[in-house]
């Protein structure tokens, strides 16, 4: 008790001015907390979310084909589990981890829950809002599939395959998401995506595509060949000088100047292209910073042991460079994820933000000022994913930091 009092006195009420500040900001915080609490549990009319949950999550994806999405989610969970297990199996095989490390223990379960409790809580919340059993079954199957994949994966990873076998494994792993994409898309056409699913889809595709492009641009900007350097530098500076919103509008409108409508790619594809090109320019500058942080001695040592220039970059410089700038890279990718809402505004895609606005003018909810509720919901969805990315990046940084100087 007295320690609490000492702590309070020391940190909050040390001088008269401290006391005044504490009281003022304490009251302000309490008031904000009260208002928020009241909004969430008393005044907020959340039925609009409940009624429109499907629209918010998957847009106008046709009812007849919703099963495809469920299948996709379950297969992706299996795929993710397999991949995680496969990687662990490889680590065990190469001796970086022992089999004992991968024993299921209470500590590992606690660790996993601690890592992922926020997105898990969100999933549970969303399930509570559903009125049909479908989503429950889907999530149940997805969890089961992920577990099965995680248990089977290590056996695949531990196999000693001939080169052709390894190539086949890589090919199958790479092909599954592509096959799923077409499976989903053939039901509705390229622009049938909508809701939060569309934001996730745009972000994941753009992230996967922009990363290698960013690395190449960063290396190109430091290249010894003047022409390569010029092209990369010009690209980076031009793209970074243009607002993302303008680029999105241009992709929507100006493409018609060059390509006939029949050949023009779908709107969501154009959005992915713009996000990819835009973010790659920023990633390139971040990665260039990382490249510059690798001491000259590292390159000299790599040269001295006889590594070729490509291997010097691939084995010595890049791994250190990328690790050194993980926080900035993840920041850029989180920013990209949130910017996918701009595609809704600029290109008329029916993403989560657009849905959030549109449902407030439904007959049942028109003129009731429910935009606060729907925007709060949208913000929550984005926050949970962004925050999870940020936490995972910190974890990654810690894990890769083992060998740091």
């Amino acid at each position, binding site marked *: 008790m007295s320690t609490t009092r000492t702590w309070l006195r020391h940190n909050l009420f040390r001088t008269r001015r401290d006391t005044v500040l504490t009281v003022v900001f304490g009251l302000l915080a309490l008031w904000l907390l009260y208002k928020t609490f009241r909004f969430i549990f008393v005044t907020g009319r959340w039925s609009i979310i409940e009624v429109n949950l499907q629209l918010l999550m998957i847009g106008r994806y046709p009812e007849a084909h919703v099963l495809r999405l469920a299948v996709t989610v379950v297969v992706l969970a299996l795929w993710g589990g397999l991949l995680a297990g496969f990687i662990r199996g490889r680590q065990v095989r190469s001796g970086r981890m022992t089999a004992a490390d991968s024993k299921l223990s209470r500590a590992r379960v606690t660790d996993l829950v601690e890592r992922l409790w926020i997105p898990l809580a969100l999933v549970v919340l969303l399930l509570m809002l559903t009125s049909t059993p479908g989503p429950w079954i889907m999530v149940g199957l997805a969890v089961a599939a992920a577990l099965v994949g995680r248990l089977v994966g290590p056996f695949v990873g531990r196999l000693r395959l001939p080169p052709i076998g390894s190539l086949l494994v890589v090919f199958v792993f790479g092909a599954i998401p592509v096959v799923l994409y077409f499976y989903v898309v053939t039901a509705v056409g390229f622009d049938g995506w909508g809701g939060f699913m569309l934001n996730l889809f745009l972000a994941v595709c753009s992230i996967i595509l922009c990363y290698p492009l960013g690395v190449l641009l960063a290396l190109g900007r430091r290249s010894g060949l003047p022409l390569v350097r010029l092209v990369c530098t010009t690209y980076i500076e031009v793209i970074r000088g243009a607002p993302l919103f303008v680029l999105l509008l241009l992709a929507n409108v100006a493409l018609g100047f060059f390509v006939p409508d029949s050949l023009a790619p779908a709107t969501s594809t154009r959005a992915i292209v713009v996000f990819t090109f835009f973010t790659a320019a920023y990633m390139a500058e971040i990665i260039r910073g990382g490249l510059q942080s690798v*001491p000259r*001695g*590292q390159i*000299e*040592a*790599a*040269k*001295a*042991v*006889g*590594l*070729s*220039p490509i*291997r010097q970059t691939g*084995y*010595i410089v890049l*791994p*250190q460079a990328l*690790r050194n700038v993980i926080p900035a890279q993840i920041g850029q990718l989180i920013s990209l994820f949130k910017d996918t809402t701009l595609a809704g505004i600029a290109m008329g895609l029916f993403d989560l933000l657009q849905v959030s606005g549109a449902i407030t003018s439904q007959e049942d909810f028109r003129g009731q000022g429910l935009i606060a509720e729907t925007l709060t919901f949208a913000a929550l969805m984005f926050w949970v994913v962004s925050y999870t990315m940020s936490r995972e990046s910190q974890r990654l940084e810690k894990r*890769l930091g*083992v*060998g*740091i*100087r």
Partner: protein
Amino acid sequence: MTEQHDDAAVFDDATAMTGTRDVMIEIEHVDKFFGDFQALKDINLKVGAQEVVVVIGPSGSGKSTLIRCINRLEEHDGGRIVVDGTELSNDIRNIQEIRRETGMVFQSFNLFPHLTVLDNITLAPRKVRRMPKAKAEELGMELLEMVKIPEQAGKYPGQMSGGQQQRVAIARALAMNPKVMLFDEPTSALDPEMIGEVLDTMKELARSGMTMIVVTHEMGFAREVADRVVFMADGQIVEVGTPEHFFESPREDRTKLFLSQIL
């Protein structure tokens, strides 16, 4: 010993002492400029197989630049450098070949911090010599035994002392089975109590018959191990001789001055 001696005479100094040798490294009339500053001025030196040459001199005298030219970490501007019969040219394949034949140990170790000790050693044999992983790791462990730290194989460089790191760096250079080892002030960045362990490793290497060029300030090492000592100042080789000659009866005034300053 610079202008008045031709390069053959320089080489003869060594052969006279230690019998006839095959020539491993030939450096002829080499110049090196950094902008307007001339770091190396008409350097001539021949190093025989299995010979240990120690290069000493005040800082800024071009010692490091000289050995960095041998494996093309610096490009020389004039003259020629021949390593084991291959002349250094701008052809990348030539450079790669010479780098495979020469190991280098740096003042600041330059171990790869993101790789374990064993991976540091096995990377080049596996990727450049295409050695199978198991065989490379066997070789890596042998080399770690040789430098007396096999128990550190799984650690990362950042978890080791400077002396241990430098011994790993020596093992890494040896993993490519080089014909020549270049040491660029290998003990200058070490705490005094760790210098001994690194020098011991180097002495052992010299006894095993490795051709070595060592830039160092460790006069005790030069006296004990060197076949020849090269004294450089202001980008020139001032005097070359056996350790006895060099430390007991140096010829040049510049050498005498340097020795009086450090001994």
